[in-house]
């Protein structure tokens, strides 16, 4: 695997010593595309173009080095006593390379410990085609072929080898039996009807027709049943695997995508793959077999006429190879427009309250209409193409029949050929048409299935951003010490949300996280839960790096009460016992009691058996919140996370929830985010975040006397509550 481009020899020989680092950028200083090389040595930094040194600086002039990232690209800057200097510019794909270069230069300039390049710092390229590799994968999608995708799809059919084998045997038999009737026709015409032979095999021949019909229908039924059985099983396996893959993926994957698209993916893509594997492959094999058999018989009957009939075949093959890519692209277009439509429906239905509240039904309808029009247009395009192809194929194939009629007819008239043979040839040719039409159907199926398989495997192949360590530390009950060590993280790597955050939290301490929205509070919490991995630095629980603990173990120690309380479809009982399904009724009630939820639950007509969630009873925001607190309590976590747990409830409910929370936090390490600063009064320490950095740490009183960022926040909120006329 090539990590970095090698410095050209022409530059290398001009250097007095081996460079510390060399990297190729893809932009010139004026922002146009072009190659330049950055070479970092012990004493100096230089930039080269076309093997010529174009600029050079002494490292001891530098006080620092950094990258400034824009959109789609960035700039490598060195700070000097006389102001900053632009060293070079690059496009986004090289961000990590020059990010490392900046770190290295800064370390050399300041005489600090030099960073070691890890593979993670550099974009990976396929050694064969120079295309960038998708993060975390080793296989280049470009150099992968369709054959492999099909092969991988077929892996799913493996468990059903036996059934598919039987279906295949049936298929061979049906195909052979199907070829009998035209031959019987020939015998009928030539030996019975032609000579008007009354001694007569007529009855026997008709019986033969009957027998073949019977055998065929029986075998078709059996084959069909096997197909349905195998198909449903396959489909079930596929759906299961896709869902499993989805569950395995990290939050970061879902942040970047609309979730509604996956509903379609799980169902329709697995259906397309299933169709290809059962119907598609069986048909394909069967029809190929049929074509070969028919040709053999036809050649035996009259090889010259058969050759004539085959004249249009090359045209058909040529046309279908031209059509195949076009159809594939149009299918993808069609899929994309349906996908957009689904996303639109999903979005507006989820936000139906907002739509109604702002009276925007009309706008939504017109948005839908636009997307709908697209679907209709693409549908017509693909189906139209489809409908056009079908008759075209028949027409071309039909010319073959015409040729046989004409030349065969002459042969019969000249008594060079019997009428029976001519009729048999024409029937066989008609049977050939079927499979040839199926070729295009196969193309259709295969292309749909391939693109579906691509999308499905894309999900399955996406590596989790938070991989479990191969050899995780076994974690029993932790004490709850949490240490942040120089943590930097961004949802997009070049755009850090948390920068160099260090914090030492003792077991049992309650930490209040304060700051403006977007300051990084939620990110801070997400990192403790290890929904994401830090880009730099590390987080330790009881002195163990989070990355070395398996995710199930971490989550066992952590309880969360989130701002958006999500209750699953099920009873209140099931929701409270979500993380501990073997909880006893007493445990559940005790948890609910601590959460101030027991009383209202018991008063409900169905008590703990009340169905909640999407299809169930509507709980109020505060009630839901208390159920979710009970859920956290029964989990009995060592580390507790409260993310705006009391947002959007009235004061009385807030008091009840506060009460519940104060019972909950006892003896646990707690991280709480609250909009109302008053709710954090109980916190042992407050951490004020500003633009991803820790601005202040201290108790409420300490921070107030400091009159810093926290003081400002408190003042601003006092101001606000004065306006609202409620307590601050």
């Amino acid at each position, binding site marked *: 695997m090539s990590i970095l481009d090698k410095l050209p020899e022409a530059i290398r020989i001009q250097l007095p010593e081996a460079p510390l680092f060399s990297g190729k950028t893809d932009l010139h200083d004026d922002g146009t595309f072009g190659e330049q090389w950055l070479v970092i040595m012990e004493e100096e930094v230089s930039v080269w173009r076309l093997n010529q040194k174009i600029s050079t600086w002494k490292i001891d002039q530098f006080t620092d080095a950094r990258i400034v990232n824009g*959109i789609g690209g960035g*700039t490598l800057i060195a700070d000097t006593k006389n*102001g900053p200097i632009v060293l070079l510019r690059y496009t986004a794909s090289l961000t990590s390379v020059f990010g490392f270069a900046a770190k290295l230069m800064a370390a050399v300039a300041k005489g600090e410990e030099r960073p070691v390049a890890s593979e993670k710092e550099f974009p990976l390229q396929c050694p064969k085609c120079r295309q960038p590799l998708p993060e975390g994968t080793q296989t280049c999608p470009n150099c992968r072929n369709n054959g492999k995708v099909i092969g991988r799809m077929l892996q799913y059919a493996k468990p059903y080898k036996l059934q598919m084998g039987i279906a295949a045997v049936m298929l061979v038999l049906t195909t052979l039996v199907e070829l009998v009737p035209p031959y019987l026709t020939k015998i009928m015409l030539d030996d019975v009807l032609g000579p008007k032979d009354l001694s007569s095999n007529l009855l026997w021949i008709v019986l033969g027709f009957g027998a073949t019909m019977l055998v065929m229908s029986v075998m078709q039924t059996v084959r069909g049943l096997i197909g349905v059985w195998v198909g449903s099983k396959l489909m079930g396996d596929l759906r299961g695997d896709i869902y499993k893959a989805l569950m395995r993926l990290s939050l970061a994957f879902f942040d970047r995508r609309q979730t509604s698209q996956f509903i379609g993916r799980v169902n329709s893509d697995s259906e397309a793959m299933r169709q290809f594997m059962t119907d598609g492959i069986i048909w394909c094999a069967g029809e190929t077999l049929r074509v070969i058999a028919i040709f053999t018989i036809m050649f035996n009957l009259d090889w010259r006429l058969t050759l004539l009939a085959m004249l249009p075949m090359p045209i058909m093959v040529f046309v279908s190879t031209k059509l195949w890519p076009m159809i*594939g692209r149009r299918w993808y277009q069609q899929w994309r427009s349906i996908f957009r439509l689904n996303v639109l429906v999903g979005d507006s239905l989820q936000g139906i309250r907002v739509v109604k509240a702002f009276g925007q039904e009309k706008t939504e309808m017109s948005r839908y209409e636009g997307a709908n029009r697209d679907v209709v247009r693409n549908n017509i395009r693909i189906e139209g193409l489809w409908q056009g192809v079908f008759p075209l194929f028949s027409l071309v194939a039909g010319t073959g029949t015409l040729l046989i009629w004409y030349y065969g007819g002459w042969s019969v008239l000249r008594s060079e050929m019997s009428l029976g043979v001519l009729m048999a040839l024409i029937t066989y040719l008609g049977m050939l048409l079927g499979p040839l039409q199926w070729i295009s159907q196969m193309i259709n199926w295969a292309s749909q299935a391939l693109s579906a398989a691509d999308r499905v495997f894309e999900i399955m192949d996406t590596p989790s951003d938070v991989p479990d360590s191969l050899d995780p530390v076994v974690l029993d009950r932790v004490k709850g010490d949490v240490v942040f060590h120089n943590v930097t993280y961004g949802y997009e790597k070049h755009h850090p949300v948390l920068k160099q955050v260090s914090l030492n939290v003792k077991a049992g301490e309650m930490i209040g996280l304060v700051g403006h929205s977007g300051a990084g509070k939620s990110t801070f919490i997400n990192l403790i839960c290890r929904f994401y991995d830090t880009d730099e630095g590390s987080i330790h629980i009881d002195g163990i790096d989070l990355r070395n603990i398996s995710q199930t173990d971490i989550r066992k120690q952590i309880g969360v009460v989130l701002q958006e309380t999500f209750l699953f479809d099920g009873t209140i009982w099931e929701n409270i016992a979500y993380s501990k399904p073997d909880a006893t009724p007493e445990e559940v009630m005790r948890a609910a009691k601590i959460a101030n939820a027991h009383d209202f639950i018991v008063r409900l007509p169905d008590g703990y058996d009340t169905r909640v969630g999407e299809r169930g009873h509507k709980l109020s925001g505060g009630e839901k919140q208390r159920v979710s607190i009970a859920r956290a309590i029964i989990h009995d976590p060592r580390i507790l996370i409260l993310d705006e747990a009391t947002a959007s409830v009235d004061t009385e409910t807030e008091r009840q929830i506060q009460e519940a929370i104060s019972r909950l936090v006892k003896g646990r390490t707690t991280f709480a985010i609250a909009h109302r600063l008053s709710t954090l009064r109980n916190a042992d320490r407050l951490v004020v975040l500003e633009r991803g950095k820790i601005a202040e740490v201290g108790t409420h009183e300490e921070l107030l006397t400091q009159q810093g960022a926290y003081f400002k926040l408190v003042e601003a909120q006092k101001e606000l509550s004065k306006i609202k006329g409620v307590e601050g």
Partner: protein
Amino acid sequence: METKDPYEINILQPESVSLCRGAGGVFQGVIEGKSYDELVVFRAFPFLYTTKYISIRNLKEDEVGIVRDLEELDSESRIELEKELQFRYFLPKVLRVDSIKSKTDLWIWELQTHLGPTRISMRNLHEHMQFPGGNRIILTDTNGKRCEISDWKALDGHSRKQLSDVI
């Protein structure tokens, strides 16, 4: 000096803005009488208004003010700001689409842009093509590199033919 309402957008008066490029090639300037060693620029509406509503920020990314329209500035400031925007919003304009090839699950675009020829690759079209309105298309590479087709209907026949299959 009067204190400004921190919740008011500070639209800069064109005559109070003087932008230039420092000796090291860094974008800097004097704004409302205060001199800044290094300035960062943001487009408030990168798609809708590319030359209007430019947020000028200091190194800490605190907003100094907003330039309402590039055209209002003096010529040196305008040229430098334009240049800086182009550096920061690296978005080559596509002049011609040489080819769009799909290989298994990678779409490879060979493009001619106003900054030279380039190639971008994307895993799929539905997540990497944006249609911000009109006939504009924003293409985003798997690595975050972006290219813009400002009006695909205005491209030459060859390019349109390539595009017609993917739009």
